[in-house]
């Protein structure tokens, strides 16, 4: 459990944030300039707060009232930065071993375990300048894990990577999340990326917390989302079947705890996926159409029955949470709401084109 209540002033910028993180991974989301990185740097001891408190698993790292402010090297807070910040004068192995000597580390992770988890074996002897961006971030992640942190901070670790590379790194982050019992805080301005790791988040804007909790709840609160972010459905899923000639990949949505939901989606065929493989499904709420009954003679492949759980309205638009086994978000105009008489508790059929569904590589 991480508890904080912090005020920071940096030049003209004021940040005031309080909260409690108790999930394996907590996201910190917000547009650039919201104060996400500043908050993380205060956690890490690289930026000093003007006042406040920070405790990690009961250990006080900051308490300005009592004059406590541990220096960065005594905090046991690991950081993976946007720029990997590998030491150019050490090899990959030297970088990984850099933080090994730290004393008092809890939950020590074996060197070999990290190397195999992040598949670093083949690059151990290489100079870091020969690493690609994605490889560099894996080494940086391994280096942070090996310093026995009690809290791991990830500051937009993939922002400098292009989209294809991101999808190669995410499975490693998912593995770390599942294999290593270190609470993580993950900063990102990309919801799709964040939701592949966690649905628990703190939303920041202009130096203030606009919301915190589960994405499924936050997404229905229009006051949380400043700057018009691209709200998405992202769900863990499992590949059920795969047919290249029909151009289809069938997946079943899973809960974040790994249980079956029974909700099956047909997505456009994606090469390179195996049956039973875990993936993430991403779908824009505006790509979900609603019907009061199944529709015949239509090209749309997915007709999923569900029940409207909650409705949130803002600016002539309505965001609906529909239970199809998993909560699915659909966005329609106010005009549609009225014309169809949609309201909470109604049974509807969600219509989704298979090509509107994106399958993202998940844990291998």
């Amino acid at each position: 459990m991480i508890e904080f209540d912090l005020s920071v002033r940096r030049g003209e910028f004021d940040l005031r944030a309080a909260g409690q993180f108790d999930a394996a991974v907590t996201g910190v989301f917000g547009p650039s300039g919201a104060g996400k990185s500043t908050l993380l740097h205060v956690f890490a001891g690289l930026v000093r707060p003007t006042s406040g408190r920070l405790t990690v698993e009961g250990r006080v790292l900051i308490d300005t009232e009592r004059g406590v402010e541990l220096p960065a090297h005594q905090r046991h807070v690991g950081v993976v930065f946007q720029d990997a910040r590998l030491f150019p004068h050490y090899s990959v192995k030297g970088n990984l071993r850099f933080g090994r000597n730290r004393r008092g580390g809890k939950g020590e992770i074996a060197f070999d375990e990290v190397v195999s988890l992040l598949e670093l074996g083949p690059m151990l002897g290489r100079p870091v300048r020969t690493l690609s961006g994605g490889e560099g971030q894996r080494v940086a992640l391994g280096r942070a894990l090996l310093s026995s942190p009690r809290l791991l901070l990830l500051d937009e670790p993939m922002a400098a990577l292009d989209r294809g590379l991101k999808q190669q790194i995410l499975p490693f982050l998912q593995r770390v999340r599942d294999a290593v019992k270190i609470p993580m805080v993950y900063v990102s301005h990309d919801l799709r990326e964040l939701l592949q790791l966690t649905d628990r988040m703190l939303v920041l804007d202009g130096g203030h917390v606009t919301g915190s909790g589960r994405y499924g709840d936050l997404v229905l609160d229009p006051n949380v989302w400043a700057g018009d972010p691209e709200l998405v459905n992202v769900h863990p899923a499992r590949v059920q079947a795969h047919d290249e000639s029909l151009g289809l990949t069938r997946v079943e949505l899973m809960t974040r705890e790994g249980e079956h939901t029974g909700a099956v989606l047909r997505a456009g065929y994606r090469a390179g996926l195996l049956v039973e493989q875990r993936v993430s499904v991403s779908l824009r709420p505006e790509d979900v159409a609603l019907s009061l009954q199944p529709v015949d003679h239509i090209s749309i492949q997915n007709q999923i029955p569900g029940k409207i759980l909650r409705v949130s309205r803002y600016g002539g638009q309505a965001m609906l949470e529909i239970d199809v086994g998993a909560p699915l978000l659909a966005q329609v105009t106010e005009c549609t709401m009225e014309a169809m008489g949609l309201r909470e508790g109604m049974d509807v059929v969600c219509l989704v084109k298979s090509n509107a569904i994106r399958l993202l590589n998940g844990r291998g």
Partner: protein
Amino acid sequence: MTGLLTPQEASALWLSIEVAVWCVVFLAVPGTVTGWLLARGQFRGKAVAEVIVHLPLVLPPVVTGYLLLLLLGREGPIGGLLEGAFGVSVAFTWWAAVLASAVVSFPLMVRAVKLSVELVDQRLEHAAATLGASPLQVWLRVTLPLSLPGVLTGLVLAFARSLGEFGATITFAGNIAGETQTLPLALYNFTQIPGGEGAATRLVVVSVLVSFAAMLASELAAKRLSRMLGGKA
């Protein structure tokens, strides 16, 4: 080479090299630490400290030498103390030549280190701190190795400056053959006496060779170092 030089010339050459080597040895640690302090330190009076360190660079060396004489001469505040306590006198000895060289070379060394430390990415130092490295460890394992090229450059500059030192040496250490008469002083002597042109020319050649060798060695070392530090040499 000694066969080509007269004993007086040879002694001036070796003395010069010896003085330069000791000057570098004495400067290595204080020069590095001062350069780092000026680059990264945050303390009151930093601007004044910076000016004082750089003063020998802009003062005429004779002035520096004379100030050293005032401080460390028998009548001087520090010189008097040394004389009284240990019966040691520094002025006009071999040590004075080393000290004069060290003082005038110090700013060059400090500048080179400072510039090099300023180029070390502080974000790497922050990363090291989050990995549990104390400030001293950060300095030893990140800052110092990454600024080694600057330290090396500083040492070479100090060595070269020391080889060429004239004004401060002649004022503070005198021009005593075999004791404080370094190469430039010997060269100056030969140009002042009739028929000294031959010896002067030989010393000029020797000077050029020694300086050339020192610079070449430092270039090669810098290349190697930069490869070791992960640059694309």
